[in-house]
């Protein structure tokens, strides 16, 4: 337990301002298991089943697991504890979102605006994520109803094309118009959005926790059923070999280590702001060390054991071993919505297994989207004093309006821009900010004691320097790499191309390091595809900027109207 004299930690659960319980009632979790399942539901998403196996296969198979697990121990779990710690600390003072949490860590007017990123990022994320989630619901229903196209008599390549055309029809990108969208796609999006809003309107224990208790066991059950079916296919073990056979030459590739650490970061849903919000509903004495570890381990179970045993083995069994590399490189969406439907369409009982596959993806998606929507919900309830139902309706309305351009301009990179900024880049920025605030400005000792408070299992001492030094360095390196590899080319409508004669295999160590950071062996050249979409991509960025500005303005408004008056004019202690 923290020593208050030494560390000046206020462990008093009573907030430091007169909190109006009639207007804003703090919610809570009904059980520790429910909390863990909800947190795991937040982490387990489409990437567990589609991104991870392809990434592992491309980056050395079994040997990929070495940097993967080291990153899990040195980046994933420590950052998970940091976010839980910030959330529970803020919850003591009645804060459920990061503007207030950050202000309690750093008594500076700027802190709440930095924290506003923790409301904006998950809101922008959930806008496009709900749309993708609706594809899984639509495909699940269409599969169960036997409405997926038949690929009888087609070669694997033809089947892939057939499924690609079907996906384009579902998305409405082949309607011959300047904008995309199909009736069936919009209907399933509306149903998905309604389900999300309905669940979050029921609150933490009655909505999100109950959904997690139903959704997570069903997801695991469905994944086991599909996994057993897939591994019983002739040739499926070739896919397992593709995922797991070690390529020891790749273990020395720095890019593989960065890919592994990036995957750990994204798979645990770090940097979204949703973990802090969930953790804010904990009691002061509740453990976060064990529950954070349980959440992470559940995510790894779903990713490595279940996710690694379905998509790539199924695709390899269907397309053959020779196509394994192309399948792994085909991208998450192609693997999930073209390759897998083709595989199931070719199976006896394929409609059933296809339906189960997409239902499990839907559960993975909805448990994540609920978590992403909750920071905005909590912000409206806590900071703007809205009722839960009104806040849910407003969040639903924002998502509905904001997603329309994403649906209409899908083929022009609009969704891709949302995905990059709110689903990748800003997560790293936010994670770096919160780590520095917690361990460097708030104070390493106080942060450490906050995390250990109520611990049910011992927290090894060596995690302290990891959290203080290794985690921010780790995130910074991934961030710098992301700026060089993705952000700069994206903004400049360019792409990286290796220089003639460049070979990673024969380059010196120094040259290879310089290559990774863009100073040697490659150059930026014009990217005609991105340049042609430039207007739409800037429109997407403008939409996100407007959304961010609104969240920032509401933060300032809330502080002036409520927080200041509650404290007699003082923003912070």
């Amino acid at each position: 337990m923290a020593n208050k004299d030494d560390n000046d930690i206020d462990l008093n659960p009573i907030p430091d301002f007169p909190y109006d319980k009639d207007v804003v009632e703090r919610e809570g979790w009904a059980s520790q298991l429910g909390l863990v399942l909800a947190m795991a539901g937040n982490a387990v998403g489409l990437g567990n089943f589609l991104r991870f196996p392809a990434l592992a296969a491309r980056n050395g198979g079994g040997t990929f697991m070495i940097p993967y697990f080291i990153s899990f121990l040195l980046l994933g779990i420590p950052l998970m504890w940091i976010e839980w710690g910030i959330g529970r600390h803020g919850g003591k003072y009645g804060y459920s979102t990061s503007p207030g949490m950050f202000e309690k860590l750093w008594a500076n007017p700027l802190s709440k605006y930095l924290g506003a990123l923790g409301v904006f990022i998950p809101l922008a994320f959930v806008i496009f994520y709900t749309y993708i989630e609706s594809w899984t619901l639509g495909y699940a229903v269409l599969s169960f109803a036997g409405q997926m196209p038949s690929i009888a008599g087609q070669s694997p390549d033809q089947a892939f094309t057939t499924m690609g055309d079907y996906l384009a029809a579902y998305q409405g990108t082949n309607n011959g118009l300047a904008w995309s969208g199909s009736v069936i796609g919009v209907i399933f999006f509306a149903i998905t959005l309604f389900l999300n809003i309905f669940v979050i309107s029921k609150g933490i224990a009655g909505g999100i926790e109950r959904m997690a208790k139903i959704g997570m066991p069903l997801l695991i059950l469905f994944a086991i059923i599909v996994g057993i079916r897939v591994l019983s296919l002739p040739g499926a073990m070739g896919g397992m070999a593709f995922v797991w056979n070690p390529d020891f030459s790749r273990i020395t590739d720095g890019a593989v280590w960065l890919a592994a650490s990036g995957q750990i970061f994204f798979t645990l849903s770090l940097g979204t702001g949703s973990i802090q919000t969930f953790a804010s509903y904990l009691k002061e004495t509740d453990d976060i060390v064990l529950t954070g570890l349980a959440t992470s381990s559940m995510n790894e179970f779903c990713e490595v054991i279940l996710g690694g045993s379905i998509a790539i083995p199924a695709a390899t069994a269907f397309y053959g071993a020779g196509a394994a590399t192309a399948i792994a490189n085909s991208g998450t969406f192609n693997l999930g919505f073209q390759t897998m439907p083709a595989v199931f369409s070719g199976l006896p009982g394929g409609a059933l297994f296809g339906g189960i596959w997409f239902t499990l993806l839907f559960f993975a998606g909805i448990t994540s989207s609920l978590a992403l929507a909750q920071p905005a919900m909590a912000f409206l309830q806590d900071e703007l004093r809205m009722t839960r139902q009104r806040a849910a309706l407003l969040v639903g309305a924002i998502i509905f309006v904001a997603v329309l351009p994403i649906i209409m301009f899908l083929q022009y990179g609009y969704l891709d821009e949302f995905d990059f900024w709110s689903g990748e880049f800003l997560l790293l920025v936010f994670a770096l900010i919160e780590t520095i605030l917690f361990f460097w400005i708030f104070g390493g000792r106080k942060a450490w004691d906050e995390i250990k408070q109520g611990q049910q299992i011992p927290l090894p001492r060596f995690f302290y320097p990891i959290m203080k030094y290794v985690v921010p360095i780790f995130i910074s390196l991934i961030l710098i790499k992301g700026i060089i590899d993705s952000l700069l080319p994206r903004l400049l409508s360019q792409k990286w191309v290796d220089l003639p004669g460049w070979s990673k295999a024969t380059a010196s160590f120094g040259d290879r390091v310089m290559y990774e950071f863009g100073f040697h062996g490659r150059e930026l050249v014009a990217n005609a595809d991105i340049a042609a979409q430039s207007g739409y991509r800037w429109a997407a960025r403008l939409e996100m900027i407007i959304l961010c500005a609104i969240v920032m303005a509401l933060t300032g408004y809330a502080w002036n109207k409520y927080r200041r008056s509650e404290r007699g004019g003082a923003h912070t202690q």
Partner: protein
Amino acid sequence: MTVMIGMILMFLQATGVTTGRAEEPLQMTTGGWVFMIGAWTFILVLVYYTFSKVLRGDKK
């Protein structure tokens, strides 16, 4: 630290022999089984350890 290890290993690779997995047949090798069973065991033990404590905590 992981990145530092990566840098060191990059150096080792730059001075070593490179092998390609593409030429190998797609059958589980001994190494594949070792990595798969090792990773699965690590995760299952972690899940069992943490969830047994979580469930015990809820019963109290």
